[in-house]
């Protein structure tokens, strides 16, 4: 994902802003990292460039 998408995404649970913790970048794309809710601290993974913003109760199988 591109960093400027932080302007439109939010935490699916409380709709608060998300903070980016980038682990791997490539040409302006964040390929691996985390989006962390500034309110509830829930972490949403960025996997192969795709933010996984499923609420935690729907996310379990994506770890595989």
């Amino acid at each position: 994902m591109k960093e400027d998408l932080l302007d439109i995404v939010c935490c699916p649970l409380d709709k608060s802003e998300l903070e980016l913790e980038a682990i791997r970048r490539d040409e302006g794309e964040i390929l691996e990292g985390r989006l962390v809710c500034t309110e509830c601290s829930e972490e949403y993974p960025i996997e192969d460039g795709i933010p996984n913003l499923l609420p935690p109760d729907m996310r379990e199988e994506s770890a595989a």
Partner: protein
Amino acid sequence: MGILENKARARLFYKYFSNLYDTVNPFIWNEEMRDQALAWFDVDAGDRVLDVGCGTGFATEGLLQHTDEVHGLDQSDGQLSKAFAKFGKQGDVRFYRGDAERLPFQTNSVDALWSSGSIEYWPNPVDALEEFRRVTRPGGTVLVVGPDYPDSTLFQKLADAIMLFYDEAEADRMFAAAGFETFEHHIQQRKPGTPRAITTVATVPESEETEPARDPVTNP
């Protein structure tokens, strides 16, 4: 509502369903019907559009003919992988995994919202429609395509077992309950005797009501 009320089951269902989705899908919803709906949707070039339940990207392709900024959201990895194959993971379309009923987008963050062939799987469609109203700017268009309640017994059985099918009266009820005031329904059909789609085109009301945070999921 049927067995997909359980989200874990829904995910399993999509996982297998995605393998035949583009084969089954044109049966109800083909390119011609999609393009008709795109004309009703009427987005301008440059509009930011969110495609909820973009699945394998059938509608996404059509949306790209109207605007450059399309964001696709789907809960299913299996469905999305087909879309990635078409558009790339870091191409023109930006993809997200997420839940239609708890959208990970800020209030008034998109100009228009499209969702086709997805509502029939949502456990609580009104919750999703409320979310659509929230993330789309006032005056923006929300377009939802779902399956009309079928005439044939076979499809009625399928409908009652696993999916939500609805007629115009039920669509009226759901959109009104979600806070929409202006909307119209179009019945679309490939040819007589085939399953019908019901396409609702709604305008997000200007009135800025107090936005309660969507009720967070109760702790498991």
